[in-house]
């Protein structure tokens, strides 16, 4: 290599290494935290915190919820940092801040790591270190186990990775009680078993996107028929688990009746799914409502018939 070509190469490297002024707006950093996912995390964590038998001062409870929300946001930012290459290939994600060129990968990584450490440490100080440990594990699970390891390797990615989304009510419970329990485990299981039919209904509609990006989602790898079969299996498993808080005496009949009705509708919609048509979209939309209704009624049931939970604890 001649001296001149070496000089040209060094100059090109210096140009690429130059730090450009950031184009990121405040809304881009908000988008990095996946606010829609965050809202579900905050809601389920709030329910876990409020139905738990322990007592947490409202100010500390509010602080704990902020920490859980920020921790979820950190996991979202780290996910977008790592997945920027495949996000650029999918229509649904191409306009996210990194692939759209408004935020650099370095900015997203720094943002995510800072929020992750901050949220875990503050939750430990505000509530307790069991809750903080669970939050740290959740962020690690989503960013490393799901995003870096499973997502691009196995069609079971969202089954195992779904655990990350299922932890928030358990973290809320731990923030209030300093530990976990059978009731918290069932709240975890409800979201864990809800995740596959929820995401696979979406994946059926977006299979082309995932195929183009090389993400081995179930409809891409195993086909529509197998995906529909597995959606139905998980919907069947979800039905009794959705009713479990009532069955173990941790919730009252209001919750039991609601869970039975909502679960039956979920089963019915799962059975109507044949492919990527309206039925899959209907199941996806309803699944969000299902989870919201279940947790909302659990909270209402607790407020109206609080002794159910106390009875379960005494028993």
């Amino acid at each position, binding site marked *: 290599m001649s001296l001149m070509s070496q000089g040209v190469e060094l100059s090109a490297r210096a140009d690429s290494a130059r730090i450009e*002024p*950031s*184009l*990121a*707006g*405040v809304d881009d*950093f908000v988008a990095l935290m996946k606010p829609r996912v965050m809202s579900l995390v905050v809601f389920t964590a709030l329910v876990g915190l409020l139905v738990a038998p322990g007592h947490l001062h409202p100010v*500390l409870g*509010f*602080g704990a919820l902020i920490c859980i929300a920020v921790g979820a946001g950190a996991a979202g930012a780290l996910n977008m940092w790592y997945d920027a290459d495949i996000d650029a290939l999918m229509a649904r994600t191409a306009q996210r801040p990194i692939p759209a060129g408004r935020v650099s990968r370095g900015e997203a990584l720094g943002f995510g790591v800072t929020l992750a450490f901050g949220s875990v440490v503050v939750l430990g100080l505000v509530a307790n270190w069991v809750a903080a440990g669970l939050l740290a594990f959740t962020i690690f699970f989503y960013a490393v186990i799901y995003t870096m390891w499973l997502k691009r390797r196995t069609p079971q990615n969202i089954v195992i990775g779904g655990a990350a989304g299922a932890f928030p009510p358990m973290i809320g419970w731990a923030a209030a009680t300093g530990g976990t329990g059978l009731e918290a485990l069932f709240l975890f299981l409800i979201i864990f078993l809800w995740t596959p039919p929820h995401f696979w209904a979406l994946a059926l509609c977006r299979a082309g996107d995932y195929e183009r990006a090389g993400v081995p989602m179930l409809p891409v790898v195993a086909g529509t028929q197998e995906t529909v079969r597995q959606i139905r299996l998980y919907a069947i498993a979800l039905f009794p688990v959705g009713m479990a808080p009532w069955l173990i005496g941790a919730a009252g009949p209001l919750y039991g009746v609601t869970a039975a009705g909502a679960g039956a509708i979920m089963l019915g919609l799962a059975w109507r799914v044949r492919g990527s048509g309206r039925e899959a979209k209907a199941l996806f939309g309803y699944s969000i409502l299902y989870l919201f209704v279940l947790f909302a009624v659990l909270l209402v049931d607790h407020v109206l018939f609080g002794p159910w939970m106390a009875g379960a604890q005494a028993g």
Partner: protein
Amino acid sequence: MDKKRDGEQSDRGGVVLTEEQKRRRRARSIAIALVLGALVLLFYAITIVRLGPNVLTRPL
């Protein structure tokens, strides 16, 4: 004044921000200030709640 400074930076080969970049930087700065202010209030309230009446009790 700002234009003069930008001109001087440009002469020295420094970074010159566009109006859009300046607007976004200002928005980020305001957001950071608001978040820091909210954190100060939150940590103050949490400290008072956690320490309670013992907040002024210190060994001499």
